[in-house]
């Protein structure tokens, strides 16, 4: 219920903000020699000649998966939710979002694997050997990772590993499936994403190392860990069943939220590496006053956050036996 209210609120706020800006998308659609007739036609075509509440109502109606009830009033007519058409290139926003979402998903999920591969071992080892050389190096990494901007990191990686060393492509994206031209397939897909994954993972890995280290250290000091060790349980079992199981609960929550937010658009990484994902799409749409596309990305991001939050709640119950769904 609250998720639905959140969804409505987000879309209304986006609409209102857009209409507070005194720009005329119809004028933009007609180019520099816009005539009054062209602008009038364009405004009607785009729907911007109607009151705000009518426009929002139409948007919301298109978005709903149910068109109405059938003749017997019991069987609802289902339809595909429709986000409308872009103001700038008249493409369907459904297709724009559906084309951009896999790119962002590739970046985010691949990046998440990257950062967890770094954060888990480094965080755990730092916790096991606090104030050791490894721990101090890890903390320097954390400090740099949190401080450095992804654009700067991305440009450095693109310059040194892409341009100077020529090991990875500087920018670009290849589809995992349905390759266009010579660029495509799993190998090219992964090859083109290595630098974006590394950039994207850098910041998050730093955050997660800190969090995992703190949680593991806290768990290591708990009575049940001491008890398990006193009972002669092997160290790996203590770690797996007692320390990590408890220490990773907040990490799972954070991971779910971070992935949900990032799916709405990893703007900086996508911009640096020319990835045609949701973040880049949103930036261009905002620059062009393209409300339907902006709204499409917002709707998608909101749904991702709501869904990922739900997934996290379900995972909680699976990880921690003390939590059961009612």
């Amino acid at each position: 219920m609250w998720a639905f209210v959140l969804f409505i609120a987000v879309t209304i706020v986006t609409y209102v903000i857009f209409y507070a800006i005194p720009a005329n998308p119809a004028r933009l659609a007609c180019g520099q020699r816009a005539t009054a007739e062209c602008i009038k036609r364009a405004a009607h075509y785009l729907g911007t000649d109607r009151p705000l509440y009518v426009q929002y109502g139409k948007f919301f109606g298109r978005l709903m998966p149910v068109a109405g009830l059938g003749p017997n009033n019991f069987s609802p007519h289902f339809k595909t939710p429709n986000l409308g058409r872009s103001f700038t290139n008249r493409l369907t926003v459904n297709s724009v979002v559906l084309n951009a979402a896999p790119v962002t998903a590739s970046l985010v999920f691949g990046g998440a694997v990257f950062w967890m591969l770094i954060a888990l071992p480094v965080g755990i080892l730092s916790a096991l050997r606090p104030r050791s050389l490894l721990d101090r190096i890890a903390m320097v990494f954390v400090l740099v990772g949190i401080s450095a901007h992804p654009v700067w990191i991305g440009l450095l990686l693109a310059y040194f590993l892409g341009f100077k060393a020529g090991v990875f492509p500087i920018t670009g994206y290849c589809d995992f499936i349905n390759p266009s031209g010579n660029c495509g397939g799993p190998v090219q897909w992964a090859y083109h994403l290595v630098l974006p994954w590394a950039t994207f993972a850098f910041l998050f890995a730093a955050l997660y190392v800190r969090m995992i280290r703190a949680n593991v250290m806290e768990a290591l000091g708990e009575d049940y860990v001491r008890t398990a060790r006193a009972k002669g349980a092997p160290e790996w079992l203590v770690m797996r069943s007692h320390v990590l199981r408890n220490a990773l609960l907040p990490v799972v929550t954070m991971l779910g939220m971070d992935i949900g937010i990032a799916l709405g658009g990893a703007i900086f990484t996508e911009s640096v590496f020319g990835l045609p994902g949701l973040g880049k799409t949103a930036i261009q749409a905002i620059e062009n006053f393209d409300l339907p596309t902006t709204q499409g990305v917002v709707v998608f991001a909101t749904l991702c956050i709501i869904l990922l939050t739900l997934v996290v709640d379900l995972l909680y119950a699976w990880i921690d036996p003390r939590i059961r769904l009612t």
Partner: protein
Amino acid sequence: MSRKLWLSTVTMSIVLLAVFAASAVAKSAKTGAVGGTLNADLTTDVDYTDPALDYLQTGWEIEYATCLKLMNYPDANGAKSSQLVPEAAAGFPKVSTNGKVYDFNVKASFTKFSNGAPVTAANFKAAIDRDADPKMQSPAVAFFSDIVGSDKSPVSGVKVSGSHLIITLTQASPDFLARMAMPFFCAIPTDLPHDPNGVLAPASAGPYYISDRVPNKSITIKKNPNYKGKRPHNVNQINYTVGNSLDAIYLRTQQGATDYAAGGIPPASYAEAAQKYGINKGQFWVKPILSVSYLAFNHDRPLFKGATGTALAKAINYAIDRKALLAQGGYLAGKRTDQILPPGMAGFRDASLYPLKGPDLTTAKKWMAKSGVKDGTTVEFYTSNRGAAPLQAQIYQFNLKQIGLSVNTHLFARAVQIDKEGTRGEPFDITTEGWLADYADPYDFINVLLSGDNLHASNNNNVAYFNDPKYNKAMRDASLLSGDARYKAYGNVDVNISKDNPAWAARANSNNRLLVSSRVGCFTYNNIYGPNLAALCIK
């Protein structure tokens, strides 16, 4: 156990990366070796690839290679590139004595559409009818409203008789041929759907055709196998990649991963590129654009009304530092100017009117005294928050302060600025603007931007709200002339307005700064459309 886990994770990651890198590098090298294919990078996608809808410079650059037009611009450099020549038409059209009827004889046996269909006069009629269809929402309507029956599709003033395309106008319009050379009017298949959302890869009859377009990702252009005409068509294929950042495009072009930085390079890199590759020596090209950037003085406001307003406008023209303003656009951003028409536009006559090297404050102050405007008077100044505009606003503020004007700057998003300044009654005194030629005729600058006959309540292009009966008549008269008389008349209007009753302070004509890779040859630049893709070749 933890150490083992750590080591195995790191080892596994390194092995995976090495496998990806080795295999993909091998594949890339193989791809790069394919001959006859050029690669181009764009930061943002074109708006459309449908000729009825496309109205952006990058799209027109592509359509210059793909379109077949009745009249077109030759594949030449310099001034010759903006002189119309017949393309699909057998020669120049026969024009009736009253100047209202144009009879084109379409003879295009040297080409067919990329789908194999022949080109006839009906294909050109189809283009005009499609543009005129209200369903299409085409921006082309502004350019053929003088054809009889242009408000309905099919357009009654366009008839096909055998190989002849006969177009009847409501009034004589000597710039009609130049307008017909716009991509909006290029030959299209007669069955091309009237789809307001545009066709992504329409068949075309020029030297090339768009074979594929994935919006926001790529555009593929291939040589039209049916084209046997005189226009160059060198490489087999041009692949556009959409979405790379300017920094990445610059690196990729230097590396040879792409051949043409179609989206440009970072403004801060132009000096470096010029130093590395020289200017106009093979890789880094600096060519003029038919454009003008200016300050428009709002003649609806008391400050710019009457003789005192004229004096103030002259004072500002003397006071602004055109050199410093241009420098904000980066190295080789353009050429300073004090006139309405850009060099390269027919009718342009160079006149030394205002200081181009720096402000002339002594003369500016004399004109300020004549204007009677009090010291410390506030000027409401509109500009955009994009690119160099905020930096230039600071220079304007400083320059105008030197002559006693206090500038109150308002920065807007570009779209907001356009909307506000185009609305009559909006409380601004000065706004910054620029104009890019739609076609090679001075009407597109002088009449469109300064004629008082075109003023409306909103959506004005004449944002100076300049409405001088004497000059309105001069503009109308010039628009009815043809040939040298037309250009001479427009040249006079340009110089006279700029000198005697300045509606603007024109400041610069921009340059196109283009970087290509070391393997690109045969670079030709068209004044209207930019780099000639059809002429490019691989060294």
